[in-house]
């Protein structure tokens, strides 16, 4: 059997399949670990409802823990409280930036139903540091990211949206 500390450490090596520069622990989707003599229970809060990585993440967690001798791995999905990008820590945010993805700017919005129209955040290009950037789309290669482009170095980049 593993100790909880060992299990946390192991899972901190499991990358998010879409953003492999951060681990599933750093993303904040592992909420609790409970070790038992014969196994372990992992409490997971998924990111987006439609995130195609969710099932792969579950599989990676299971494989990693079983390979380390954790015994029976039980996965529990917890929806409440809903996942928020606020759970991504500062160190992970810097890893995202270094990888070319601008981390969430500020806290997740809690607003009224009024749509925010044509309000753009000024983002800093993660490659050249220019603030001369523009948004191309509210969505990107995955729902959690928006697509931007830098008008100084002309490179595209992604923005991890606060949610």
């Amino acid at each position, binding site marked *: 059997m593993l100790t909880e500390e060992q299990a946390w450490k192991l899972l901190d090596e499991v990358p998010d399949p879409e953003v492999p520069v951060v681990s599933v622990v750093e993303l904040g989707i592992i909420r609790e670990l409970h070790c038992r003599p014969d196994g372990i229970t992992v409490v*997971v809060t*998924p990111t*987006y*409802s*439609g*995130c*195609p990585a*969710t*099932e792969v*993440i*579950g599989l990676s967690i299971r494989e990693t823990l079983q390979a380390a001798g954790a015994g029976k791995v*039980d*996965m*529990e*999905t917890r*929806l*409440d*409280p*809903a*996942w*928020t990008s606020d759970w991504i820590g500062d160190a992970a945010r810097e890893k995202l930036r270094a990888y070319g993805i601008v981390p969430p700017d500020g806290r*997740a*919005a809690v*607003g009224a*139903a*009024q*749509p*925010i*129209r*044509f309000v753009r955040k000024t983002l800093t290009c993660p490659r050249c540091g220019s603030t001369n950037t523009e948004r*191309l*789309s*509210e*969505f*990107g*290669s*995955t*729902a959690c990211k928006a*697509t931007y482009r830098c008008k100084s170095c002309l490179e595209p980049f992604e923005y991890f*949206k606060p*949610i």
Partner: protein
Amino acid sequence: MVATMTQQTTATPEHIEYVLRLADNALILGQRLSEWCGHAPVIEEDLALANISLDLVGQARLLLTHAGNLEGKGRDEDQMAFLRVERDYRNVTMMEVPNEDFGRTTLRNFFSSAFQVLLWEKLVKSSDSELAAIAAKSLKEARYHLNHSSEWVIRLGDGTEVSHAKTQAALDYLWPYTAELFAANPTDEAIAASGVGPAWSSLEAAWEGVVLPVLGEATLVVPARTPFKSYGKFGRHSEHMGHLLATMQYMQRTYPGAQW
């Protein structure tokens, strides 16, 4: 991921019906949006529509699982999604009408997400704790869908002559279907009294408060209300629903019980 959301409940038929309406709205609109994959006007919007579709199908999975648990007959999300007959689907008719063009698709997303944001905001406080949890999660996603679609409605409506004409035609087509969202019915009355959620009719004024200013900014003219009524949420669908289901259910009907 193995979801361990089993509940022993004594849900009323109205409660199950109400959750199914939410589930099927998400499922059927998600299915329609998936048709755009590889066909949108530009790659960025192709990705956006596919991502919105994924969010909606994800929400539908949670809601269908919940409806199956409330029903207590052992039906899982796949059986709910793929093995019901047309009359058992509870989405409003607006969700099933064809995409037609980018204008109609965008406008429907706008009407739908404006409604969902208001509804999820209320359902966060549902007496049904599972529904409240799904609402809190879906609300965050719906806000992004609303921002995305409202910007495009303005851009298309207040755009070129062609984009304006197409979006106005989409508005003329879709507007009569929006009335169904707010039509009073016994299910909603029972649900509002039970504390599970609001009667959808109670959201009409707030919905117009969100939608009308954007349509105005888009220089679109809102048609007058007519006696036209659609009845999708009661299971009486348009001629388009059968075709949609034939596509969506094809794999499960051809290979019953197939898993992937």
